[in-house]
């Protein structure tokens, strides 16, 4: 064991930080601060990808031949941390972390050439069409059908929880191309242009005022057969590949570290009888417990990145990061609301530009509760807390 970080990484971090400081437009940054990580407007993601692309940093984790940087896992970690700390918008996850990797791993050369540069450059947004109403954690029950007719698929069905579906130009869909084989074997991975006739998108209002998640209805949508990625019937294994691909993202370690620092700042700013709440031992202790948990989480991520020999199945570690990270996200938000007390209850307009000036109210009172409300989803999406626990007990203990 040697826990001393490579000192050369300091210089790397410095370089990244300077570059982001130079490149990140003030208006984007301010909007991210205003949303405090509870929202990310998809057009901002594209703007930021285009900016990053100029340095060749839009998809740093991709293979070098497709525009990646060749950075080490620790360098990628630092890059992502610096982006988060600078309040840069998220990039389009659908292209960078989901559809992109599937295409460069399983797609044809033509597909690579067609899609990867556009994705990397942030030319358009990609929406994910995996979940369907009624099969949240159970992809085997997928019902959206794609019937082959000549050189086209005719797609019918309904997708849900599609982030920024209303904005996306392309979507990547799991569809059932063969209803006769066992459920997992009949699924395929299809690229569909979102303006194809027969597609209707409905934005779903969420409990915090946001409506980024969408329902996508597909009614006899005609898709060129060339939009099939990889082999027909392999969609299930591509989806699994995606889930196994990224082991540390679901820890949301950078957001967690940033938010726990914000909770401390709020505890220092909010007062009771003139005394900052950070000096109230009950609030202070709660905060410190979260700081400890965030420290543990950070080192759990480092263990993962450093390829620790692990006596359990690696996916058990990935699920652990998800469980610990999602609980921490919720606990931090809950503390922030509790610090604000009744002043956490005011509903401000969700969109930053619709908010009235409220000089009697601190800025963070506009953002704490929307974030806290939507963070109830952190133990739901990407496999619920219960699904994660099931994975852990199975893979770590063979139960």
């Amino acid at each position, binding site marked *: 064991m040697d826990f001393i970080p490579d000192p050369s990484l300091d210089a790397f971090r410095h370089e990244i930080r300077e570059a982001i400081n130079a490149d990140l437009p003030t208006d984007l940054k301010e909007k991210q601060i205003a949303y405090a990580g509870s929202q990310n407007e998809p057009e901002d993601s594209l703007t930021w990808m285009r900016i990053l692309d100029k340095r060749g940093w839009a998809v740093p984790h991709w293979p070098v031949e497709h525009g990646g940087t060749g950075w080490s896992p620790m360098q990628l970690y630092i890059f992502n941390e610096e982006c988060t700390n600078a309040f840069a918008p998220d990039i389009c996850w659908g292209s960078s972390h989901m559809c992109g990797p599937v295409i460069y791993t399983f797609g044809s050369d033509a597909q690579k050439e067609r899609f990867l540069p556009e994705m990397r450059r942030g030319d358009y947004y990609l929406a994910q069409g995996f979940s369907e109403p009624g099969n949240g954690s159970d992809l085997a029950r997928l019902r959206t059908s794609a019937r082959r007719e000549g050189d086209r698929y005719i797609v019918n069905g309904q997708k849900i929880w599609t982030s920024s579906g209303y904005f996306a130009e392309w979507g990547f869909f799991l569809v059932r191309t063969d209803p006769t084989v066992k459920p997992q074997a009949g699924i395929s991975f299809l690229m569909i242009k979102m303006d194809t006739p027969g597609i209707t998108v409905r934005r779903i209002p969420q409990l915090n005022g946001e409506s980024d998640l969408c329902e996508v209805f597909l009614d006899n949508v005609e898709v060129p057969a060339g939009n099939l990625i990889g082999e027909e019937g392999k969609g299930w294994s591509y989806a699994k590949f995606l889930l196994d691909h990224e082991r540390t993202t679901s820890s949301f370690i950078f957001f967690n570290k940033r938010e726990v620092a914000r909770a401390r700042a709020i505890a220092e700013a909010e007062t009771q009888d003139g005394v900052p709440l950070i000096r109230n031992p009950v609030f202070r202790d709660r905060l410190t417990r979260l700081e400890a948990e965030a420290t543990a989480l950070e080192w759990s991520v480092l263990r993962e990145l450093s390829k620790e020999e692990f006596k359990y199945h690696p996916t058990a570690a990935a699920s652990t990061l998800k469980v610990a990270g999602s609980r921490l996200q919720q606990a931090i938000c809950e503390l922030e609301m*509790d610090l604000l*007390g009744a002043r956490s209850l005011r509903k401000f307009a969700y969109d930053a530009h619709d908010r009235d000036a409220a000089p009697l109210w601190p800025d963070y009172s506009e953002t704490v509760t929307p974030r806290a409300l939507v963070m109830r989803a952190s133990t739901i999406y990407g496999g619920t807390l219960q699904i994660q626990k099931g994975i852990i007990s199975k893979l770590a203990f063979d139960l």
Partner: protein
Amino acid sequence: MDFNPSDLQRMLLDSAERFLADRFTLEHRRGLRATADGLDTEAWSTFAELGWLSLRVPEALGGLGGTMADVATLATALGYNCVASPFTSSVVIAPTILTGADQPQEALLEAIVGGTARVALVHDEPGDRYAYDKPRGTTAALRDGAIVLSGQKLLAVDAPSASHLIVTATIDGDLALVLVPSDGAGIEKSPYPLYNDQRAADIRFDDVAGGTLLARGAAAQALLTQALDLGRIADAAQMVGSMEADLAICSAYLKERQQFGQPIGKFQALQHIMADMFVATHQARSILYAAIASADADAAPPALARMVSLMRINLAEAYQVVARQAIQLHGGYGITDEYEVSHHYRHQLVLEKLYGDVDHHQRRLAAL
């Protein structure tokens, strides 16, 4: 002891369950967001017709003179149906103060009973954190024998739809409770919704004349404390009702929703979550009863304060188990605005944090 509803309570409950479930559907409640002050005026008139608004007005003043057990019965039904309304302000807090004032405000009480007046308490100020026994920055001055109010108030719950305001202020170093019509000259309201769509307002008073001094000094403080404690019980009853709705909604959902080829209610992990929610809700109703018993026995103020604070501490833990897990059990649907559970979550969140959070009640208990 008798834990079963009295005839009056059974009547209240029956009328409430019928009327509220019919009217306050999810769509109707979402529709009220577009109104100016969040109030369902028509429903409020029905509240009046059903006698609900007279519950805490003494019989001598034309009311029902009901107990807090009666109030809680109704408040539970409101919570069950996730109705965010000025109920606690106008039916509990204001009548307590208006009845206990140096000069009982009979006309206004009558108007409340009739549904034509609603009264909000205006207390919080910038920099406050549940400061219920601290001097007020807002001042009430006597000028030419009349009260003149000046100051900045924050987060006055139910003020946007109120016809009258009870304002806490400092008068010659004493606490004063001052009643003013809400549309008086010099009153500037900045209204906004809370997360349960209840409305509140920041209010600026600039030399506002025409106020009535309801009480001052120790009497005012005692009246304020009593009104708040009774209000806390009414809000707690709404929380319990809302938690009980979560139980009903979730247990139905678990039977209906299929996953991996069976209703998700067959999964032991989810069954145990429901059991935890049940235990928390059952205990919450029990401690609500303890506080009601204290109030209806006219316990000494410190005894009532202690019981109310214990209750609020318990409820703050209970709703976390219930409302949060209710969302979790619904998966993605739980965080949409289109399913009941997120509404109950936000409603309970608001009710938990009004009139004192856990920290406030812990401090209060330590000081008793």
